[in-house]
């Protein structure tokens, strides 16, 4: 069989919630080459960000990705606070870390569930998502929303975690730990799961360095990078925890790293809660007058890896340039290494193993002409149109 079949995965495929088109070039069931078409999800957030004030950008970057809706504001806050040389209060640091780690637990549980679903193991999917609900309840209690938390602002956080809530959080956490044990046992001991995931989608150490992969994808191949440790921010230098690594680089190792990281997250939150009890309630923000001219880089460790924000300020109240690098942007490129030569069944789980998040990856711009359908206008022309329209309206107003 010399003719290659093209197997499209996506853009709307149950494998992923988000639109993305992978074309697997297959010979029989073996994947020979992989190509991707992106662009189904770009919303030109980087450009939008330039038209928003620093306070508004938080709500925008929160919506880059629903699952990482803490990590992006986190990195952005780090970047802006670096420009303005702002030191936030201890209480704000603890609260930020607690939200960040809760998000990691919920994201990893979500991934375990989805991975089970991709393996056709719907029971794991349902169980993991059932155990994820208490985390969302905690979020709802702390922030008022299940997903987009709106907790961050320049110079601190928007809401406090009152001391009365701490005991409730503790209780839920110990519950979650028990459930994680159960799930880890069910997943890690299942011989069929071993057969399906061990030795599949291997990324070597060299591949990771070559593609600059980050997060659990890198840590599963023995590259111990974690921004929380390397370039500590918020409360992470104040608590005691370990970076989890595995050596094999296959899908199983990635699952293992994620499951063990959940325990670390639980322990970090517990230490943060202890810290929270020691500092005064209510001191959650510092006053920020203005953001001076300059550049700032903000990094944060999202559940999927390092989030990188680069902000250029020109002294006005909105960023002059805002560059966002989400972890999936580098992790997705590694598919070229991990998928080729495998069967379709293996390729799909390898694709899923890096926990790809296309929402994060694409934030780019497209300009198009509505009438002719031809894409000819660029952003400046659009802005010009807008300026002309404003001028016209002004004229009308004056005339009337």
């Amino acid at each position, binding site marked *: 069989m010399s003719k290659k079949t093209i197997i499209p995965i996506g853009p709307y495929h149950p494998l992923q919630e988000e639109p993305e088109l992978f074309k697997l070039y297959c010979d029989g069931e073996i994947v020979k080459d992989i190509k991707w*078409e*992106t*662009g189904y999800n*770009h919303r030109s957030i*980087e*450009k939008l960000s330039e038209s928003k004030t620093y306070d508004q950008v938080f709500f925008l970057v929160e919506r880059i990705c629903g699952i990482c809706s803490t990590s992006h504001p986190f990195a952005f806050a780090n970047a802006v606070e*670096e420009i303005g040389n702002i030191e936030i209060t201890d209480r704000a640091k603890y609260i930020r870390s607690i939200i960040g780690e809760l998000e990691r637990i919920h994201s990893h549980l979500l991934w375990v569930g989805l991975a089970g679903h991709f393996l056709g193991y719907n029971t794991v999917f349902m169980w993991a998502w059932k155990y994820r609900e208490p985390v969302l309840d905690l979020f709802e209690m702390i922030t008022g929303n299940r997903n987009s938390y709106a907790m961050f602002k320049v110079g601190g956080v928007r809401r406090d975690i009152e001391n009365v809530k701490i005991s409730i959080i503790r209780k839920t956490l110990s519950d979650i*730990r028990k459930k*994680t*044990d159960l799930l*880890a*046992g069910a997943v*890690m001991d299942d011989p069929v799961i071993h057969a399906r995931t061990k030795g599949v989608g291997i990324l070597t150490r060299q591949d990771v*360095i*070559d*593609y*600059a992969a980050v997060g659990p994808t890198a840590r599963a191949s023995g590259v*111990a*990078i974690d921004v929380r440790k*390397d*370039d*500590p921010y918020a409360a992470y230098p104040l608590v005691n925890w*370990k*970076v*989890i*690594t*595995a*050596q094999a680089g296959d899908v199983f190792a990635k699952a*293992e*790293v994620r*499951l*063990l990281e959940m*325990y670390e997250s639980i*322990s970090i939150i517990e230490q943060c809660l202890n810290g929270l009890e020691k500092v005064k309630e209510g001191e959650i923000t510092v006053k920020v007058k203005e953001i001076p001219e300059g*550049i700032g*880089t903000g*990094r944060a460790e999202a559940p999927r890896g390092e989030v*990188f924000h*680069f902000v*250029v300020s020109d002294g006005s109240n909105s960023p002059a*340039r805002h*560059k966002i*690098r989400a972890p999936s*942007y*580098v992790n997705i*490129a590694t598919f*070229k290494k991990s998928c080729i030569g495998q069967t379709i069944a293996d390729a799909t789980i390898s694709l899923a193993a890096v926990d790809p998040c296309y929402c994060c990856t*694409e934030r*780019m*711009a*497209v*300009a*198009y002409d509505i009438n002719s359908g*031809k*894409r*000819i*206008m*660029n*952003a*400046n022309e659009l802005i010009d149109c807008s300026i002309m329209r404003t001028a016209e309206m002004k004229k009308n107003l004056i005339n009337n």
Partner: protein
Amino acid sequence: MQGARYKTKERGTRNEKRETRNIDTMVIIEKLKENFSSDILEIVTKNEKRIIVTIKPDSIINIAEYLYKTAGLRFIIASALHTKKGFEIHYHFSMDSTGLVLNIHVILDKENPQIESLSNMFNASNWIEREMHELFGINFLNHPNQEKLISDGNWAEGVYPYRKEFK
């Protein structure tokens, strides 16, 4: 105790051992100054973890090669800007053992922005260079495959939405 059932089996490797690279933050700056003194235009040290090195565009390959191969830094991403000075690119390199973010800053020509591609050295810069080519129209020389990444078929040739206009 906590997580007893799974932890006692010790299947996960937990090591805190981090690779020790002998090059310290300041040492790497010294080395850069020493080896590439004629290529470096300016060094701004914001603090020990954030350093911006402005270089001549022609020397990007040599400096990136030194940082990636000899010093073992990780390429994070590159950010392009369009300012009054022209097109600027910040190449962000991360030194994971110290938390240093080293920005290699180049300023390109206004009319005909072009620079050597780094993609032949490491794959990580492949996508971002394609992206900068689409959005800013910066030309990357010797790029293996400089086609559009995200906007395929979405706008006409020669229109770059992230460019600004300065009066």
